[in-house]
């Protein structure tokens, strides 16, 4: 008598056995009518499930589910992003030129404004990338943490924003010539709709300025804050309120030891 287990019967039912094994079960069933009856019931259950939902696959597919169309819409959005970047670069260029020409002799542009502008530029450039959006993928959290903490010379943790619906894509190191350490880190997140948010982080040593600033550039918002150890600029297309809520969560996780600034003053 061969050994027919419950799992074997189920595999037989689901057509997952090869010819020999299947024939052996056939033979066994002939001697076990009770099992055969129950198997037939389960077979009908399978058929009924396919009767219920099988026809969906032959329904005409609505145009919004056409991958070619979706890809086109996505690349159009990306192109708009590039156009926006070009526009921002242009506007910044004009602004910087004007600022330079009209500069009061004693006053250079505030450092924190430079950082916000750098954060927005970095955001615009890298969120448009697919394959090269980040330098180190978000799956290597530990490596990112130690690497970026070392390069920036201050302890950083990679914030987990899953509760806000954002998955961590990863991060990269960027030059930041305007500040003493000369380096900044960018972390990137993405929501389920593919909208991306970046954090631009620098050490705060030597940077005087407000603790908090909100700037709107193009269709992106940038929220900057400084603590005793770091500055962080959150950039994304989200509303100011959403960014503020994110900032609370980011701040608590980025430098766990520090105390949060008073966002409510915004």
């Amino acid at each position: 008598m061969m050994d027919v287990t419950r799992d074997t019967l189920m595999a037989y039912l689901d057509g997952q056995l090869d010819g020999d094994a299947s024939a052996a079960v056939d033979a066994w069933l002939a001697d076990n009518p009770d099992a055969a009856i129950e198997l037939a019931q389960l077979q009908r259950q399978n058929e009924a499930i396919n009767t219920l939902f099988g026809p969906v696959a032959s329904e005409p597919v609505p145009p919004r589910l056409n991958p070619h169309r979706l890809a086109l819409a996505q690349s159009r959005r990306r192109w708009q992003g590039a156009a926006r970047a070009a526009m921002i670069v242009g506007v910044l260029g004009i602004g910087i030129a004007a600022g330079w020409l009209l500069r009061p002799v004693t006053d250079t542009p505030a450092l924190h404004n430079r950082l916000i502008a750098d954060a927005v530029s970095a955001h615009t450039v890298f969120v448009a990338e697919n394959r090269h959006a980040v330098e180190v993928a978000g799956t290597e959290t530990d490596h990112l943490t130690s690497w970026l903490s070392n390069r920036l010379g201050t302890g950083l943790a990679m914030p987990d924003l899953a509760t806000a619906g954002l998955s961590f894509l990863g991060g990269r190191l960027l030059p930041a010539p305007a500040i003493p350490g000369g380096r900044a880190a960018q972390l990137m997140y993405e929501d389920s709709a593919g909208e991306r948010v970046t954090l631009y982080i620098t050490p705060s040593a030597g940077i005087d300025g407000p603790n908090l600033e909100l700037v709107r550039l193009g269709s992106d918002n940038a929220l900057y804050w400084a603590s005793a150890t770091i500055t962080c600029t959150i950039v994304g297309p989200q509303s100011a309120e959403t960014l503020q809520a994110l900032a609370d969560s980011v701040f608590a996780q980025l430098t766990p030891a520090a105390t949060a600034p008073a966002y409510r003053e915004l």
Partner: protein
Amino acid sequence: MVDFLDELEACVPALRRYARALTRNIDHADDLVQDCLERAISRRGLFRPSGPMRPWLFTILVNLHRNARRSEQRRGPHLDADSLPDLGTPAPQHSHLALAELSRAIDGLPLEQKETLLLVTLEGMAYAEAASILDIPLGTLMSRLGRARANLRLSTGEAQEPHLRSVK
């Protein structure tokens, strides 16, 4: 690029079928499929493992559905008059009534059992493929499948004597 999109397009009918069976709601199901496709398109290259496309897409769809369920549970249950499927023309051996009963019974299954049962019976996936999509060991897949079937038989009143359970 075009190959990728064509390959994606070929998977859409199966994704719709599976999403419809999971949600029993045509709009929710198609929203889910659209999210899944958009994610696949934006993540091609960066995230796609070098394997066949179908299991990758089903993995994305299953995860999106779980996320949607979680946020729905936070908001409270969503009742919808459209949630009963259009039964169409039943095969002769299945009455409308029995099908409606089965549909409700499937809906009443725990999510993990429903996901498993539908991958195997509706999508005809090999056990190993379904297990890798759901990221569970083969043994777990088999036991979920067995429990799902036993539950359906109980709630559709078919299980008078659970013979299979006594088979050794």
